[in-house]
């Protein structure tokens, strides 16, 4: 199988100098010139269905606590979770539903649109303009049940522009999805190294040989060549080949007799899916990987989805969050079936995480100055090209 690569391939060949990303001053430029200028997905909107629903997201990259809340008008907004009075933390729990938020320090209260509602003993602030002291807002937009923020004072693009042609191609796909399980892991690893581990499938042949043997590729594509890669200006996505001869194991067969098939089984039948899912219309398709630059990877399959976020926390640390989405279980049997997927995907992710911490440590010795991605790993090269372009554009 030959890989069809579409999009601009300029500058994607040859080795990549890797040591720069570990330098503190380079890291700081990444935070200021990339992360603070990007539209970043921060959360699924499942916990934000009704007016007053809120959740608090800690983002180590910015040292920020971000309050996401759905207002009475149905719009999701994002605010810094910091009181305008003396700068205390306003919301201390992780999620819930409230009509208003009272700061625990002196009881200043804010509405779900961020407005300052009440000040105890207000007369004692004689020269203060209360109307200007709402929670500090962060630009926030929703797309396909995913909530994005942009930390810039004035974002240079709309979210729709940022997402390029992905924007219109996933209509309704996530409406049928339900979070099955999630995890949050602190890693001793640079964020690029973590992201790069999930934007190529070459590693699945060897690293995952003990956890997902035979699920992809097959006799006619033993090296699991990607049928299609699409390089966008900032983002990249690629289709992965199912193995048509893969035989589910007995517990897997029992599971998916009682629930919708999920990874490591693939439903390749052409269900009604929006055009972005199996974007290349590949026969014997397993799933697509979509890398939303800079730090989010979404694996879109038929009936299942993985999402990964990598939040930089200095040049040598990151926080990785991962969610599996699937059909909302309706019966106990559906739930038991999903446990098969949960346990298997845990083993696969555990191999990735162990591997990237080791890789980070090895690279940090400085012994190797360059890395050498193959054509199958063009998503890795593309990541560094987008990084370079954004650093230059926002210098």
């Amino acid at each position, binding site marked *: 199988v030959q890989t069809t690569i579409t999009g601009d391939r300029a500058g994607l060949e040859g080795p990549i100098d890797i040591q720069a990303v570990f330098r503190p001053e380079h890291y700081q430029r990444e935070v200021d010139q990339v992360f603070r200028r990007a539209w970043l997905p921060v959360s699924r909107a499942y916990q934000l269905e009704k007016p007053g629903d809120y959740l608090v997201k800690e983002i180590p990259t910015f040292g920020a606590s971000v309050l996401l809340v759905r207002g009475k008008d149905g719009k999701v907004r994002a605010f810094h979770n910091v009181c305008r009075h003396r700068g205390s933390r306003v919301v201390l729990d992780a999620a819930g539903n409230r009509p208003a938020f009272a700061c625990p320090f002196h009881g200043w209260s804010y509405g779900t649109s961020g407005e300052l509602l009440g000040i105890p003993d207000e007369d004692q602030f004689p020269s203060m303009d209360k109307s200007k002291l709402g929670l500090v807002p962060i630009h926030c937009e929703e797309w396909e049940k995913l909530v994005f923020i942009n930390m810039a004072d004035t974002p240079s693009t709309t979210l729709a522009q940022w997402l390029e042609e992905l924007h219109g191609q996933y209509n309704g796909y996530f409406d049928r999805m*339900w979070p099955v399980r999630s995890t949050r892991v602190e890693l001793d690893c640079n964020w690029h190294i973590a992201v790069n581990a999930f934007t190529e499938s070459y590693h699945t042949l060897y690293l995952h040989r003990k956890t997902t043997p035979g699920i992809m590729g097959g006799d006619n594509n033993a090296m699991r060549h990607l049928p299609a890669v699409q390089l966008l200006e900032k983002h990249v996505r690629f289709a992965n080949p199912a193995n048509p001869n893969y035989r589910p194991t007995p517990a897997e067969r029992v599971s998916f007799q009682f629930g919708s098939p999920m990874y490591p089984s693939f439903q390749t039948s052409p269900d009604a899916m929006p055009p972005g899912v199996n974007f290349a219309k590949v026969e014997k398709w397993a799933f697509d990987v979509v890398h939303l630059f800079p730090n989010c990877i979404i694996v879109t399959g038929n009936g299942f989805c993985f999402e990964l976020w990598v939040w930089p926390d200095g040049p040598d640390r990151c926080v990785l969050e991962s969610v599996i989405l699937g059909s909302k279980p309706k019966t106990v049997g559906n739930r038991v079936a999903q446990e098969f997927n949960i*346990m298997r995907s845990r*083993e696969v*992710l555990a191999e990735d995480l162990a591997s990237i*911490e080791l890789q980070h440590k090895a690279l940090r010795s400085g012994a190797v100055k360059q890395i050498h991605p193959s054509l199958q790993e063009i998503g890795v090269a593309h990541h560094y090209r987008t990084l370079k372009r954004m650093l230059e554009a926002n210098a």
Partner: protein
Amino acid sequence: MSSLPEEFKDLEPFAGWALPTRPERVAKLNAAAMAEARTFYDAMLPRMPAVIGRLNKHELGNIGDEADRHLYHLALAFMAVAQPIELGWDQTSNPGSFPFERMPFKDE
């Protein structure tokens, strides 16, 4: 460890696997010898359709009956044990892999 429904008395020797949380089930698996895991797997596999058939009489998230709740946890433990068995490992954990304690998988 209390018992399973009458219909599943044959699985009673494995009632110790009926642990309510995922960390407990994974810890039990990782501490077990391969032979012990395989015995449990072999006993459960042919019974799984009947197990799920019985559990499906309950509303999801609301298994009031204690014996059936044990059966549910046993079914979840089976899905954990199935991994090393069906992947053909020679031990119940994957050497060198990332530790479960650092990567808890929460149910949503």
